[in-house]
């Protein structure tokens, strides 16, 4: 194997149709970057889901004298008997893992701590303003939150049932939609990249038809005839991948990390996630360009 000879031929091939090579590199870069972005989105959504899975609980707020909602004015504040009734009903549900009672004192202490930055707001609120509640932890928050909430809502003594999932659902839908859009665009671009690889290789084969006809004539093996074209396609793929890796790092550090700034919780993607995605795009890129070159050559460089 004459590596130097092969690389010389590859260099000639890439230089002779420079415009096509540049177009190929750019399209491979963009399609791989979009594919990678889609994968980063998938990971981000997964991370967020797992985070919430552990954290989210259902809050069943109870009626107090201070609350003027229709069902509370109708029933009056929750009695001890009602509270026991609610607790038993919740604990009896198969979806529920734990039920904790949060008294008005505890709730007020928590409130003061959460808003410690804003003493003016705290000073406007008095101990009795915040209702006591049952904090319910579920086995599968995402699936069961709605069912549990519905079964307890409207029971005597219950003011309202709140769970953050109803807000999160919208957030999930947004992320899922963005991910799907990115993946669809990536697939379209990958198809474009495949066609461009095929066309570039065909053009390159045409440009070098003298060389290849002589190679065949003097008995060069198919492998030797095809290798320069194959390497040519894969080098374009690797250059495209390098650009894509740069774009992905930018997407992560500028896009996704900036998004984190809006939330107080920590669901940031790790460097390992990024590296995983970049390695995956390398494999896709090299396979894509290599396989396409190979299949194109089988059509254009027969024995």
């Amino acid at each position: 194997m004459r590596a130097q000879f092969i690389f010389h031929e590859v260099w000639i091939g890439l230089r002779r149709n420079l415009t096509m090579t540049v177009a190929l590199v750019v399209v491979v870069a963009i399609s791989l970057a979009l594919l990678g972005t889609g994968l980063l989105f998938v990971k981000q959504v997964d991370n967020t889901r797992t985070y919430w899975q552990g954290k989210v609980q259902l809050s069943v707020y109870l009626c107090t004298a201070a609350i003027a909602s229709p069902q509370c004015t109708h029933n009056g504040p929750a009695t001890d008997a009602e509270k026991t009734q609610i607790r038993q009903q919740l604990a009896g549900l198969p979806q529920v893992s734990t039920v904790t009672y949060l008294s008005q004192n505890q709730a007020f202490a928590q409130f003061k701590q959460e808003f410690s930055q804003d003493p003016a707001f705290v000073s406007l609120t008095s101990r009795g303003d915040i209702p006591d509640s049952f904090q319910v932890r579920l086995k599968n928050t995402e699936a069961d939150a709605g069912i549990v909430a519905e079964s307890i809502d409207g029971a005597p003594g219950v003011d309202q049932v709140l769970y953050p999932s109803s807000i999160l659902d919208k957030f999930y839908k947004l992320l899922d939609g963005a991910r799907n859009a990115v993946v669809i665009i990536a697939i379209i671009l990958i198809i474009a990249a495949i066609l461009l690889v095929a066309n570039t290789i065909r053009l390159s084969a045409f440009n070098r038809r003298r060389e290849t006809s002589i190679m065949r004539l003097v008995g060069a093996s198919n492998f030797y005839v095809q290798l320069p074209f194959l390497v040519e396609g894969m080098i374009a793929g690797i250059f495209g991948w390098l650009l894509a890796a740069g774009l992905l790092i930018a997407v992560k550090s500028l896009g996704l990390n900036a998004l984190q700034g809006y939330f107080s919780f920590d669901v940031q993607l790790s460097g390992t996630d990024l590296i995983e995605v970049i390695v995956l795009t390398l494999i896709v890129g090299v396979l894509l360009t290599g396989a396409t070159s190979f299949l194109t050559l089988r059509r254009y460089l027969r024995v």
Partner: protein
Amino acid sequence: MIHFDNVTKMYPSQNRPALESVNLDVEKGEFVFLVGPSGSGKSTFLRLVLKEERPTEGRIHVAGKDLARLTNWKVPHLRRRIGCVFQDFRLLPQKNVYQNIAFALEVIGKPRRFIRKVVPEVIDLVGLDGKRDRMPDELSGGEQQRVAMARAFVNRPMILLADEPTGNIDPATSIGIMKVLDRINRTGTTVVMATHDAAIVDSMRKRVIELEYGKVVRDQSRGVYGQAY
């Protein structure tokens, strides 16, 4: 060395076979002229020997190998034992004399040390010493054909096929080309040359096989081109 056994070749879109029931033997070390008008089947014969085409009927043996049994991936190995020269030289315009000849060895993976040794030898053999750095467009037609012959011979093939090698060259220069072919033949290489050039065939007095409409109409040792042309 080359053995045709009742070979017929039909091309798909033609109703007359390009070669019809051809039987012939070319022995090792022979020099054979293949003559006949255009379309008589000379080029088809050469393409069949290279396995660029398959016969419609009959068997072909080249260098002891049955071509019908030769798998596609072994065809390159067959072609390494056959050198080819054409009317239009087929040199690479961006490579100089040395590089054009070396190319034939590079693409079959010969080591560089071997290439450095044999290329100058073969440049001497075809009489181009001192011109190894010239580009093809700086050479005359005769010199370009010498480069092509050097490239065909550099891997020491058992057979040299020449398809009208003097077709683009004036008669005086053609004599030089024929001397090189004769020199190559004397090393033991079998030479098959398709030609229209009556003067050359008559002067060489070698075996002549004449084709007409795809059939062998004459096979004569120490023959001449024939009166009809």
